[in-house]
């Protein structure tokens, strides 16, 4: 697992209060991890802080799964 994936998953576990094993790369934030649209806004803010990247709203809207988040962050680093 990449270092980005590790850090992303840690943030997801902390913010959504879900068990670590549920946070697979295919997991959908809304369908599988119980997030709502505002939780995703908060997660995106946390990713921005953690990785020092800016995730504009149109890109954030396309982030639906854990893998989407990891890929976007990797593409900007």
């Amino acid at each position, binding site marked *: 697992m990449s270092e980005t994936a590790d850090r992303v998953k840690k943030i997801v576990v902390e*913010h*959504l*209060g879900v068990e670590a094993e549920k946070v697979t790369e295919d997991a959908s934030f809304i369908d599988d991890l*119980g997030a709502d649209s*505002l*939780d995703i*806004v*908060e997660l995106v*803010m946390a990713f921005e*802080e953690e990785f020092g990247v800016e995730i504009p709203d149109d890109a954030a809207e396309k982030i639906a799964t854990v893998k989407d988040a990891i890929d976007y962050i990797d593409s900007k680093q």
Partner: protein
Amino acid sequence: MRRVVVTGLGMVSPLGGNVETSWKNIIASKSGAATITRFDATDYKCRIACEVKPADHEYGYDASLDVDHKIQRQVDPFIVFGISAASEALRDAGLDNMTEEERLRAGCSIGSGIGGLPGIESESLVLANKGPSRVSPHFVHGRLINLISGQVSIKYGLMGPNHAVVTACSTGAHSIGDAARMIAMDDADVMLAGGAESAICPIGIAGFAQARALSTNFNDTPEKASRPYDVNRDGFVMGEGAGVVVLEEYERAKARGAHIYAEVIGYGLSGDAYHVTAPHPEGSGGYRSMEMALKKSGLSLEDIDYVNAHGTSTPLGDELELGAVKRLFGDHLSSMSMSSTKSAIGHLLGGAGAVESIFCILAMRDQIVPPTLNLDEPSESCKGVDLVPHVAKERKVRAVLNNSFGFGGTNASLIMKAV
């Protein structure tokens, strides 16, 4: 009019994470006051408070029993306390698993005096230091006062009236009184009613201290600071927590064989129309609110055995309430007991009236009245009033009166009796 009874109790207080622990400690004359741990208060005039204790404390509070981790992170502590107290009350009433039909007739009226002050303070600093794009998307609904009622209604599917009182330190008492009326008026059959507060944060302590409302002479002996009616009192000690009761229409409660703690029989409300923080110099607002509750109750003064006073430990407020109680009770003063449990748990502001109503109910259940701590040297005007100094007192308790008075000159009194 439909009769309204109390069938469930829930509490988070500086002396316990639930009703029974809090009550046991109140009766044992324990104090919840200590040096503030939430932030470094070294440079503050007031450095003490009655904080709700962490889960690993002897009488601590475990939020995770009833509140999801995610919600705990997103909302202010007053909402978390409120959800916990409401959950305990619903379970106690045996109503945590109602049918859809029942839930359509069950509502919430759980308020707060101030609401999410710690979160408003901290997110304002985020805004100032990091800019608007770093402010939490949960900022607004995590701080709003009606969001205890909102969260609890969502958690338990309660589709009846959804309301929240905001009347400073009278909030808890007004919430119970207003919700009882909603049931009496047939707007609902079951109501969760009460109040919560958690404002022990830098701006909260600084603000109340600047208003000259807090005790500042007992920073080195925190447990001595809240001393209602004592000549050396110098202001209140900030508390935090929540109290919630389940109110239920009497026939419904009886039909399902619920344990009935008490009946809400009198509710009085008034305004001082005098000053934003100082009570009316003749205590006339408090007097009228007690008088109205008494009239509604249909009781005589001699029926009331215990008064849980507003008694915040402020020099002016205690004296004026005492005067109003003495004028109201007259010849019957000698047969009743009056105490201030704020001497033990501090002032829970919007939660006070609810938590203290629960203590009143438990006083009836156990036939014991809680003490006024630190009443070492009662002021001159205390003569002739049993203020239950230092230790709890076993006595007959048939009916109780609870007073709550708030900034803005808002007063509420509740009378309850055993059924």
